[in-house]
């Protein structure tokens, strides 16, 4: 079922006129026949009063990027709520080699009180760092600011520096107050800058300790995704220097500079670092996608292509063949259940794009997709980056400019080889989501509850992939929902095993007999119809 421009206009017509005008730029009905590629507005201010699914800069910085680093203590400087709200909620898994150095299940906050707001919170923060050091002795500490911190002028940097001097460990201060930028995207940027500036490259390694050394960027190990990806990569023979940041370690992160290649899974949250790593250390980055069987296969082949080693290529094919043999027939079973169905796919990061491929493999067409906090390049491809006009909110996020590291820069590829590879594999490239979507499908930036409902009424999808905030709106409308933030406590969904698990979980929604009951019999059916046969009437 496709969407007409008229239907779209009717939906938007319910808004006040200013809002209508604004939202119109954030919604496209895909049309590949236009003279110029379609433009979508993204990464602009959220309209007040729209029930957006977006979060804030603190969420992007502490919640997404910095939080999963397991051997650091992450202190939320602010009133108690914000720390609480990021406690375990992203389901970033982490295994522990050293149980005393895994703080992933902990939540630390200065729990600022009214007096701290009035008199300043630096003192309390300093004491909290003292507490943390005396109890936990982490390898490093991060401090994330919430809204009031910037407003009352607490100098996190100064507190952090003093603590660094006192304890001889790194204390990273992130000024990621919630009001900064227009979404969590600002927080990713702030986090990336901080990690780049203070952590990466601080390690002692000059060279990778093994062949085929790679970093996995933008993989947060939700539900164990990263573990599945690592399983396959290790089997082929890659050495993973660091994962940013799912099940990630501060100690590994410091040596990210030694990798031969950076894999970028979530483009939005981590492309800053990928870019800077290339400039500073000469490490190219490759856009990868481990969501979906074919995407995983393509990705594995692309990585092998990059290294250009015959044995590696052979091993890659062998692993692909083995994995396929193991899962294909099971997937086919699931496909029978899914075939012909349609989905909405609205998530943050790159998932709004990635999961379309996996849906397609199951026979499910994505009829509407979008991102919570993307920039235009996530939709239209990186080629539009030069054309993007930055608004004031984005400009306010300090940009980090890096240069070639005089000692550690190492060209991993000759410029010729680079250009040659670029034609074959997405080296330093990302084409965005839009190009892969069919004409007539809908692309929506920053979808809200109202629009969700309206689009559902028109497009009548069979399933919605989204988050918990809209999950119950969707289900109350009688449509199964698949949470792609927390996977409904399931997962992993990445790689081969993940595709299978995803297929299983999606089929669950279609197969569960529960959905047979959503129309009460007294509304649509006469009394006793279809059931009276069960009753044994004896007159």
């Amino acid at each position: 079922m496709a969407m007409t421009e008229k239907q779209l206009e009717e939906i938007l017509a319910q808004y006040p006129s200013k809002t209508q005008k604004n939202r119109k730029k954030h919604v496209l009905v895909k049309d590949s026949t236009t003279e110029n590629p379609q433009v979508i507005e993204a990464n602009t201010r959220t309209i007040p009063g729209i029930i957006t699914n977006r979060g804030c800069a603190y969420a992007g910085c502490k919640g997404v990027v910095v939080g999963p680093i397991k051997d650091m203590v992450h202190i939320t400087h602010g009133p108690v709520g914000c720390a609480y709200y990021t406690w375990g909620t992203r389901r970033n898994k982490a295994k522990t080699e050293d149980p005393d150095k895994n703080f992933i299940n902990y939540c630390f906050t200065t729990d600022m009180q009214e007096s701290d707001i009035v008199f300043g919170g630096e003192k309390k923060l300093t004491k909290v760092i003292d507490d943390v050091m005396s109890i936990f002795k982490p390898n490093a500490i991060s401090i994330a600011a919430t809204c009031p911190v910037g407003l009352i002028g607490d100098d996190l940097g100064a507190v952090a520096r003093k603590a660094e001097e006192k304890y001889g460990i790194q204390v990273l201060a992130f000024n990621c107050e919630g009001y900064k930028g227009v979404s969590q995207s600002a927080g990713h940027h702030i986090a990336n800058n901080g990690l780049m500036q203070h952590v990466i490259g601080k390690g002692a390694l000059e060279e990778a300790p093994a062949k085929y050394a790679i970093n996995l960027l933008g993989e947060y190990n939700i539900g164990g995704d990263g573990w599945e990806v690592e399983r396959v990569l290790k089997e082929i023979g890659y050495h993973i220097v660091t994962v940013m940041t799912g099940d990630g370690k501060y100690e590994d992160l410091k040596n990210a500079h030694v990798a031969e290649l950076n894999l970028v899974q979530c483009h939005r949250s981590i492309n800053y670092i990928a870019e800077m790593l290339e400039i500073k250390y000469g490490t190219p980055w490759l856009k990868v996608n481990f969501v979906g069987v074919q995407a995983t296969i393509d990705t594995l082949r692309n990585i092998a292509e990059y290294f250009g080693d015959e044995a590696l290529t052979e091993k890659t094919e062998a692993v692909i063949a083995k994995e396929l043999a193991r899962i294909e027939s099971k997937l086919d079973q699931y496909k029978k259940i899914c075939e012909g169905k349609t989905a909405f796919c609205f998530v943050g990061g790159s998932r709004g794009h990635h999961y379309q491929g996996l849906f397609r493999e199951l026979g499910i067409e994505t009829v509407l997709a979008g991102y919570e906090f993307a920039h235009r390049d996530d939709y239209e491809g990186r080629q539009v980056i030069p054309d993007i006009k930055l608004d004031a909110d984005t400009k306010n996020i300090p940009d980090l400019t890096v240069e070639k590291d005089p000692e550690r820069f190492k060209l991993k590829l000759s410029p010729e080889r680079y250009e040659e590879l670029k034609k074959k594999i997405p080296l330093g490239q990302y084409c965005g989501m839009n190009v892969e979507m069919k004409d007539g499908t809908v692309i929506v930036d920053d979808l809200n509850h109202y629009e969700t409902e309206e689009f559902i009424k028109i497009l009548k999808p069979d399933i919605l992939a989204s988050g918990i905030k809209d999950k119950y709106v969707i289900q109350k409308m009688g449509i199964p929902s698949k949470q792609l933030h927390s996977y409904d406590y399931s997962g992993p969904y990445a790689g081969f095993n993940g595709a299978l698990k995803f297929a299983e979980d999606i089929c669950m929604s279609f197969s569960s007999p529960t959905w047979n009951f959503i129309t009460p019999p007294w509304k649509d059916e006469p009394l006793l119809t279809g059931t009276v046969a069960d009753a044994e009437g004896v007159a």
Partner: protein
Amino acid sequence: MGPENSNYRNLNENPCSMCMPMGAILPFKGIEEAMVVLHGSQGCSTYMRRHIAEHFNEPVDVGSSALNEKGTVYGGEGNLKKALDNIIKVYQPKLIGVLTTCLAETIGEDIRRITTDYLAERGLEDLAIVPAATPGYGGNHPEGYFLAVRSIVETLTGETGTHAKVNIIIPNISPADVRELKRILQLMEVDYVLLPDISDTLDRPYEKPYTKIAKGGTKIADIKAMGGAAATIQMGITMADELSPGKYLAERFGVPLFNLPIPIGVDNTDLFINTLSNITGKPCPDGLKHERGRLLDAMIDSHKYNFQGRSVVFGEPELVYAVAKTCFENGIFPLVVASGSKNDRLGKLLEREIELAPEKPVILNEADFTQIREKSKAAGVNVAIGHSDGRYLTEKEGIPLVRLGFPIHDRVGGQRLLSVGYTGTAMLLDRITNTLLENKYKTYRSVMKEKYFRDSKQRIAGAK
């Protein structure tokens, strides 16, 4: 889908059922001012009182004719009459159920004659005595239960004028369930006779002074008039016709019978409500509709967790049917459906559900827990639903048990477990879903470790 031949061996190892008179005692406990006597060895009465008391946490006075070796030779008539004398003097009941046991039946006691004689001899015109032949080898406790209800009706119900009441004949469900049925009937504004009604008698409030026989229970006058009712709704679809009180009322008095499943699950509850509406012409009230809506909402919220459930359902056939059906409705697909009774209806009644299910369950008749355990293990069951004896499934196979039915002796509150109607179904489902979730979280680390770190010594943190 016929049941598996359970008699692959002669040994019954860890039984999943009790004997006939045990089941027959229960309905008498749900009639006003009633007592019951077992005609046989005193041990029968002692054992059964012990087990019933432990489940309900209530006094359970059951008399015995205390037959001894002499009785086995000369007959037990004298003992039985003495027992009746003593009970009448001390308890002053309005009705006495007289149940036989292995002993009385094996020596061929004619309790109908003895009790008829007794009433005549003593001139007790106001007292009703209901005899029922319930040898321990004649069936299991569910059959004993229905036979006793049928005997009560056969003995008490007589010709009467027609009236608008609906007979509600129920199987062995919890006092809380009975109260919930009564609440629904009240909401539906249905005038009814519910038989037997243990809601007060086997879950009686603490109250001063203590009375030997608990207040409450179905009124004898109401039972007498059941033949004139507008209809009978009987929750006894797994029961054979000869045990069916509803069938008797239909055949003897022409009361239309609607033989329905226990209203657990959406379909079963819809059927109950719709049947009530059909009989009385009264619509389903908004309050109940909301309860139904809330159940659906709960089912949707839990459907992904439930779909990971692979269940074994065991116990009394009537309850097993309703619970298995509910499991099917929620994707908690039953892989083993077991009852200790001889019952060929259970499997047939589930045929439609089984056909639509992704895996076919094993239906076990005359099952013991050794079979149930073997089949559950083989099928990869991850949740058991049934009475306390299923705890061995947890102890031996790690299969968590959702306690339901009779007996529950290793937890409190079996008498307060609510599972019928829309609201009760939601409560039952929450218990099942949360059992699945608890087990999932408990085993998450080991599962992930097995999958991704088999060969390492790394520990995994950050579950959920």
